[in-house]
């Protein structure tokens, strides 16, 4: 459906069409506007945060520990006198970077495997699908926690563990798309014209599978960020002094009685960021899913 629309668009007017589509998407609901605004803000802060941050995120000031929010320190300071606002800003960059790497790894591996599985079929398909079933039959977070614990606590290992649990979703998604596209005219035409399997996969299928993958990615960014900080919170992810949001919240946990701002602000940043990505992803999916669009009548008719 969307695949067709996107494929049918001539590239010359792509920019203008994209602009128009964006405007239409934002016009659907103010929730879409809110989601997009949060995502843009977070991306902006992640890229430029270092320039905005008033302090070095790891700069100690033992004369100013556990200070409440004030003009000098907007989000207060932590137990070592570090500026929490600067640390939260640095955390935005870490979260975005980590989510991008996790999703890049799982999308690249998962989509490729899904396309191969759908295109080749037979025994290869059967084996790949049983392996993905095995992964999907297991609670993702528990598996990620077990893998991260096995590899030893570090942010890199968390990234790897989450990529390991994320890829099967993309394999299944891509395979489903390929199965429905495989028998369509443009693929058959390419086959008749003598294109090989590889050429069909790279030339025709990837382009058509991509839109649905992009929607899924937008839904998964929030989850990737959330899972990373949950693992850090459990001590399996980022280690001190890395200003990862989950790790800062762990540090702040013991000070919650005396310094409420310490775990509160990084948590707020985390919650709002995940909310933004989820709103955007949810809006995109609703917008693209034709069942939820158009003239579905309510009870009132």
């Amino acid at each position, binding site marked *: 459906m969307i695949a067709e629309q996107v494929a049918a668009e001539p590239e010359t007017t792509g920019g203008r069409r994209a602009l128009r589509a964006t405007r239409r998407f934002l016009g659907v*609901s*103010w*929730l879409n506007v809110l989601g997009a605004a949060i995502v843009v803000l977070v991306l902006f802060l992640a890229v430029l945060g270092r320039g905005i941050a008033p302090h070095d995120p790891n700069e100690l000031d033992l004369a100013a520990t556990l200070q409440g929010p004030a003009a000098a320190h907007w989000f207060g300071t932590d137990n070592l006198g570090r500026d929490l606002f600067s640390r939260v800003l640095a955390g935005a960059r870490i979260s975005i970077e980590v989510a991008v790497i996790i999703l890049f790894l799982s999308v690249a591996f998962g989509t490729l495997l899904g396309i191969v599985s759908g295109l080749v079929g037979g025994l290869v398909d059967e084996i790949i699908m*049983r392996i993905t*079933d*095995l992964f999907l*039959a*297991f*609670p*993702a*977070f*528990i598996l990620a*926690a*077990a*893998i991260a*614990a*096995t590899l*030893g606590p570090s942010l890199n290992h968390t990234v790897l563990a989450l990529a390991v649990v994320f890829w099967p979703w993309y394999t299944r998604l891509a395979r489903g798309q390929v199965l429905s596209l495989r028998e369509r005219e443009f693929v058959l035409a390419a086959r008749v014209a003598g294109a090989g399997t590889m050429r069909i996969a790279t030339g025709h299928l990837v382009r058509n599978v991509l839109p649905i993958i992009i929607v899924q990615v937008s839904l998964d960014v*929030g989850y990737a960020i*959330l*899972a990373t*900080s*949950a693992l850090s*919170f*459990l*001590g*399996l992810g980022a280690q001190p002094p890395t200003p990862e949001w*989950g790790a800062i*919240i762990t540090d702040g*946990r013991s000070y*919650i*009685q005396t310094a*409420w701002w310490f*775990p*509160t602000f990084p*948590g707020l940043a*985390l*919650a709002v960021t*995940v*909310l933004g990505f*989820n*709103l955007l992803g*949810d809006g995109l999916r609703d917008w693209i899913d034709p*069942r*939820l669009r158009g003239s*579905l*009548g*309510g*009870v009132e*008719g």
Partner: protein
Amino acid sequence: MGGLIARRLAFMVFVIWGVTFVTFFLSRVVPGDPVRLLAGPRAGKAELAHIRDLYGLDEPLPAQYRRYMTDLLHGDLGTSFVTRRDVTSDIAAFLPATLELSGYALLLGFVGGLVAGSVAAFRRGSGVDAAGRLSAIAGLSVPAFWLALLLQLLFHTQLGWFPLGGRLDASVTPPPHITGLLTIDSLLTLNLSAFSNALWHLALPVVTLAAGVYGLMTRVVRTSVLDVLGEDYVRAAEAKGLTRWRVIRRHVLRNGLLPAVTILGLEFGLLASGVFVVEAVFQWPGLGSYAFNAIQAADYNATLGATLVIAIIYVFTNLIVDLGYLYLDPRIRYS
């Protein structure tokens, strides 16, 4: 139908075997040496060798795995290196706390999501709809460990309405062990003070855990009720002159709630990950805390046992959901 169930059962056995295989070999490459942890820093070579021999850790990995599987088939999950008790009885002791916590969370999230999702769908496009969607996405977005801390800060530290953690106050005598679920056991023995105390301790962790369930449920119910509202049979029922409430009750809700059942499996996945962090924050003596401590201490058998039990519950839930769906909707064909 019989063949299908047999296939699903066979796949379930395969998955459970896969889980033992993956976790066993993963746990054996852990950098920490459990023997050293167990024996303490001052243990001599002979002592280490003795412990290795005692737990069969000096055998080659395939032999260890064979032994583990043989014991497993006899319901023996081995001995915890840390507590030195049977992992099976350890898990039996910790599991009820988790079941009680997640049961109430599932119930609360399910009912809340059902109401919010249907109301949002009936008022599609209105402010109520937007509020419902926003609350659903917020429920899925809020980090459970942070929400737990905030609730503690507000309702314990500031207002003093709820306890910080645990299942019962130390001053309250726990009810005798019947099901292991404190609220049930205390009701069965008519111990109302223990009952209210247990509920009081459940409140904050249940709300934290229910947030995600509520979010997922609201979203699914809203979508599926919207789908049903567009169906011809709903229009036909309206055209027939049935009252609005009757259309909603007989046609819309009955069909719209079907997908709610199918996401029970997903809900369980959410709960399983939530339980880990929520139990950690509220010092809830459940399987999540147990598994977490075991992972931290490189306690092979306990880690393996806890993971296995969680996986088995998960696989069973999904099997029941699949079969239930098959029963509810005969059109479903499995390829």
